[in-house]
């Protein structure tokens, strides 16, 4: 990315998404948006605010509650050469449209021997922490990362959100773009410093397959995505007060996982904690744990620590939800045990 003479603005996650969508729609007439309440409402999580007014109902299409229909239609339109962005309001609703996503969006390019391209983006909101309960609070990174054929990204900070969304729209492959509700900087949710950040105003893209070291340290590597990155940074600050320097890696890409960045860090710190808002089994913590055990074994001085939401649906009551979703305190405890062991 160029850093000279560019205009930088402080934007929230949702404003950064919004700007990327606007710029890509201005740039390429093949881009259009479909989803529930993306029109006048501007998207429940604010990603399409003002786009209906600027581009009209033809390019910012409110859909019926017909996920199989309109996400399937995005696949069909992409195969014709358009570049649809379809919003699945909450990732939890993917169950309704699983077949279209897993059996078609993910596989058509391969099954056609590479002859059919699906340049489409599936935008979807993830995350809990505000008592929206079992069917509206999941962070299903692994469910999407598991199947071959889709790029899956989950950026944390506004600058990455903008650049990676632009890249996703320009990519010739289906990209699942997960944004975290709490990182959108919405007026009606928890206010987080991390949801506001510097964003270059001009259009730019960032790679879809690269993690980022967001804090350097020598004693332990903490890997997370989205809210777990935010919690890891909080934890790192606390740990620093106790003389422990944690390196924090923000995954950004769920599929593929940037093993190079993780292994490089591990070679330096020799200890690994992986934090995940998704469920424990078969998830990111297992995947990265396995990476460390196979390719990073020689670096490890201690067992890998996996912090994730245990294998239970997300409960409603605040006390219960707080208990299941990992936070900075859990990370601090894990790291302290790890470095003193």
């Amino acid at each position: 990315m160029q850093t000279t003479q560019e205009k930088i603005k402080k934007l929230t996650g949702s404003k950064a998404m919004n700007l990327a969508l606007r710029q890509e729609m201005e740039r390429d007439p093949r881009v259009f948006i479909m989803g529930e309440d993306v029109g006048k409402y501007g998207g429940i999580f604010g990603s399409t605010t003002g786009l209906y007014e600027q581009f009209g109902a033809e390019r910012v299409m409110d859909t019926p509650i017909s996920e199989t229909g309109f996400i399937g239609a995005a696949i069909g339109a992409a195969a014709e050469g358009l570049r649809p962005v379809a919003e699945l309001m909450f990732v939890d609703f993917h169950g309704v449209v699983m077949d279209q996503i897993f059996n078609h969006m993910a596989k058509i390019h391969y099954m056609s021997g590479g002859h059919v391209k699906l340049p489409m983006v599936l935008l979807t909101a993830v995350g809990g922490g505000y008592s929206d309960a079992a069917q509206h609070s999941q962070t299903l990174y692994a469910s999407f990362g598991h199947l071959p054929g889709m790029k899956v990204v989950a950026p944390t900070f506004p600058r990455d959100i903008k650049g990676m969304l632009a890249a996703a729209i320009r990519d010739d492959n289906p990209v699942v773009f997960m944004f975290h509700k709490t990182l959108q900087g919405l007026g009606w949710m928890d206010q987080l410093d991390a949801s506001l950040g510097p964003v270059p105003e001009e259009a730019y893209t960032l790679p879809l397959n690269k993690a980022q070291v967001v804090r350097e340290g020598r004693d332990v590597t903490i890997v997370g995505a989205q809210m777990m990155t935010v919690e890891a940074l909080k934890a790192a600050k606390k740990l620093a007060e106790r003389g422990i320097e944690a390196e924090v890696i923000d995954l950004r890409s769920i599929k593929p996982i940037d093993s190079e960045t993780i292994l490089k860090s591990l070679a330096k710190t020799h200890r690994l904690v992986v934090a995940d808002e998704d469920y424990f089994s078969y998830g990111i913590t297992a995947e990265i744990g396995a990476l460390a055990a196979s390719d990073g074994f020689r670096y490890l001085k201690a067992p890998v620590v996996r912090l994730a939401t245990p294998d239970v649906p997300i409960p409603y009551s605040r006390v219960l939800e707080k208990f299941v979703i990992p936070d900075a305190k859990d990370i601090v405890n894990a790291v302290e045990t790890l470095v003193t062991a």
Partner: protein
Amino acid sequence: MKGIDKNDLLWMYRKMKTSRYFEQRMEKAYLEGKQPVFNIGAGPVPGEMHLSTGQEPAAAGMLVHLTKDDTVTATHRPHHQAIAKGVDLKKMTAEIFGKKTGLGKGKGGHMHLFDPDVKFSCGGIVGAGMPHAVGAALANKKMETDRVAVAFIGEGAANSGAFHESLNLAALWKLPFIVVVEDNAWGISVPKNKSTSVATNDIRARAYGIKGYLVKDNDPMEMYRVSREAVERARNGEGPSLIEIETYRFLGHFQGDPELYRDKAEVPKLREKDPIERLKKYILKEQEVTVMELEAIEKAVVNEVDTAFEFAIHSEFPEPEEALEDVFA
């Protein structure tokens, strides 16, 4: 109207009043801790809150004909449906406050209320309750009972695949199944004419070869009459029905909805036609009921709801570790 049972109307009045007053208290409780700055996760009742105020006739007019052995699957906007089905109000309120004494021990919340004692369930995935009610109707038929199963959905849900597959199944197997489509004109911000290819969903019933009814203008008495016919037909083995009722959403899609998409004049106009007031007038005019009798009902309602809130507020929260229980039987 001929053949209306006075006790049925009084029952409906009580249920509609209960739901209304319950939601008035819930609206206040929900705002606690969310002022002056609204934060969805704050206060004693966090998360999303979908209120059904204005939609009471849809539930009461149908459920007056059901017993506790008939099955109901409801929506993400479930309070009027739950109350009219006879869900334990104390446990339901406690659930919404996230308490251990709640229907689901605090695990479910306002969109996920389950009371198997009266065969009630609801959920947060639009349209998903339809096939469950079809399955309950299938079970009723297999077990040779005369029980029926009723699915409540919104008009927005009538565009989901689950809706269409369910109607075909129910028709094909001639099940004792009824779907009540509560057409409150909006699916969040999307008006019905922007989401639905036909003007009313009774038209779609015809495509599946089942009986379709349309209840206009949120009319509690018409809902009562039409539902009675549909339930009788189901109990007699005459197959499924679809009832669409034009109803009113007095409040936002959820609490905190800025409602920038709808004309400010819409709600005051709807409120002038408050269905509870309409039912009250009808009862006083057409039945031998005194104002005092209705006042006694109103007093009982306040008492019942206040008791439920007291119970909920004073109940204990679950222990954090309880989050790990109840995943399996």
